[in-house]
């Protein structure tokens, strides 16, 4: 207690603010023991000698290195596999990431452990590690066709996963919302936030959301990608799969993956019209 409380005029005015003498003697003996500070939890650094990639995944999927269910994470997971970098998957969420979005990688080299690598620097890091090519420089069509994935197919994907209510309940709720909490009120709030964010994202580029337009655009994009691939094994006729293959695979795999439990898979129908894209996905799935 501060000495002020013991002063006579204070104790006279309010009997509640003084402590009875026996209790005060007891508390004067505190603290009885001071324990040493806790150590940093062991689970934060599981295997220091292996690169850790933090992605959206469920626990079992992370243990077996299965493909992530998030296109952005799957793209980098696939790319690192294709260029031959060893890494382990850790199931995580956005709050763990220094940039606020997944994936990011904690490299095994001790000098770098304090600096996780965010997704937009992963390619540079991979090139430094295994000296693979920077594919954007090799073909002028890389960036051009990549815009199909980043805009048209992504928009249709956002619509199909978040704004189609049946798919949202069957897929997105199960993958993104339910693992975070068992509280149904928080789940409802999270689900609402996710849908609202998807709607805002789509309304950024147009005044209203037209599902037929989005699907039509995605169909055109698949057709263009199918023509670009042609009879080749990998995009741009490369002997080994690379970043562009990873970007395409990230969407085609998830769209064709029936284990996700799609209720209405219009993108899947559009994609199956192009057998070479489906075969491309099947070939790349063997890496996992």
């Amino acid at each position, binding site marked *: 207690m501060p000495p002020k409380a013991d002063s006579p005029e204070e104790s006279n005015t309010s009997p509640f603010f003084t402590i009875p003498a026996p209790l005060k003697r007891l508390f004067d003996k505190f603290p009885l023991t001071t324990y040493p500070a806790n150590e940093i939890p062991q689970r934060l650094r599981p295997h220091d000698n292996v690169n850790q990639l933090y992605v*959206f995944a469920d626990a079992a999927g992370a243990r077996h290195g299965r493909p992530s269910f*998030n296109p*952005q*994470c799957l793209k980098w997971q696939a790319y690192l596999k294709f260029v031959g970098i060893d890494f382990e998957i850790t199931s995580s969420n*956005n709050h763990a990431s220094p940039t*606020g*979005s*997944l*994936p990011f990688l904690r490299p095994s080299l001790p000098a770098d452990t304090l600096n996780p690598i965010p997704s937009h620097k992963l390619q540079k890091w991979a090139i430094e590690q295994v000296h693979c090519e920077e594919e954007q420089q090799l073909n*002028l*069509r890389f*960036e*051009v*066709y990549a*815009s*199909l994935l*980043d*805009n*048209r197919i*992504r928009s249709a*994907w*956002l619509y199909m996963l978040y*704004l*189609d*209510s049946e798919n949202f309940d069957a897929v997105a709720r199960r993958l*993104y919302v339910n693992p975070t909490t068992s509280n149904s*009120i*928080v789940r*409802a*709030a999270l689900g*609402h*936030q*996710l849908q*609202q*964010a*998807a*709607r*805002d*994202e789509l*309304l*950024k*580029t*147009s*005044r*209203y*959301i*037209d*599902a*037929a*337009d989005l699907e039509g*655009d995605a169909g*055109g*994009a698949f*057709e*263009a*990608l*199918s*023509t*670009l691939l042609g009879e080749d094994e990998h995009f741009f006729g490369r002997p080994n799969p690379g970043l562009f293959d990873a970007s395409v695979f990230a969407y085609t795999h998830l769209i064709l993956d029936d284990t996700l439990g799609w209720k*209405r898979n219009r993108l899947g129908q559009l994609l199956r019209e192009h057998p070479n894209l489906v075969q491309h996905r099947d070939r790349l799935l063997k890496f996992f």
Partner: protein
Amino acid sequence: MVLQLHVWGPAFSLPSIDAQCLAAIAYCSEVLPQDSWELIASSDPSVSPTGELPALQNGSIWVSRFRNIVDYLRQYSEGAWNLDQNLDDVQKADSVAFSSFIESRGQSLLDLSLYVTSQNYYANTSPAYGSLLQWPNQWILPPKLHSAAKTRTEHLGLSSLDLQAMEDQRKREHSAAVAAGQIPSNMIQQPRDTVSKLLGRTAQTNQFRLEALTADFFEPLEAMLARSKICLLPADDNNNPSSLDCVALGYLSLALVPELAFPWLRDAMRAKAPLLTAYTERMRSRCFGDAPVEAKHAFQPTAPASLPWRAPERISVAAVGTTLLGTLADNTPFLREVRQNRRLKQAVEADSAFSSVEKQVLSSYADSSNKDMLLSIATAVAGTAALVGYMVHVGLLSFSTGGVQEEEEFEEDAGVLQVDPGSAADFLGAF
């Protein structure tokens, strides 16, 4: 029936201030016979039931967005009005991919140049809208378009082009310093940034980022043009333009032609892509005529003009009322979201290409969203009622036990309604 193309009006000596409208004008001027169409600078998205410009009106049928207009013209003429009919598969794929590339990257650059860069917006873009919009839209639409452009380009991290946002940021830091008690408020000196000082600094810090962005956009197009020489994607052996060239003209002419206070985009284009610059000038005089287009061409058309202008109708009292009410509703919480959901539904019901099942599904989605919204409103009302009830309760009988439970209920309700766009948007940023 004469086809009517409704667009945003002319600005910067171009026939429209919007890239998609320019693309649609270029396409129509290439593909349609001279006297079969009219160009109307309505400059008001509410003229079309789809709420978007460019919009093509054929009697009671309205088609909006560039690609839909292209598709509609092809179907309507049974294949005759089609610039892309001679393209092979590879060229078609290129056309789709390059259109998507130009639309996404080009729109970001135009947003940055015309809207986010403060001195350009206030000195050029905003006055241009002022001269082509009618009352009350000239007070309502430009701020809307301005903030939409800002949200579209947020992820590029170039907000320092925006002097207003920088000033806000400075004020925030300043008041945070005062609040933290680091500086006694009367001791703080007011740092007065002159505009030229700010400009000098932003120009330098943004230079690298802008260099990278413009190079990413212009280099693939320049390389493509270096191969095909006359047009990006020649439609036939005579080097006539295809639909991709119309899209490219729309975005590139808005980058090249406007005389802006801070012309970084034009400078970059001239320096990095000389072929593309010449190509844009060539295409511009081919599609829009040699003389610069002025606002009076659109609003008081004279007979011999390179584009078939027709004066827009005077705005009616009913339209003014609708606009004002709509704006009011859009700025009211809850109503705004109800209207957003409507936007999806209306679009679906208006589009006859949907099968009945799809229509039903989509309408039911929009309906259920509306129900969610009503539920939210009901929860909010119930929560407020609970709070008021609790307060009355406490006022009458202090230290009652029932009040605590009600308060908890209210807090839970508030949790449901609380929307934190930041975290959810971050979450989606990962996709």
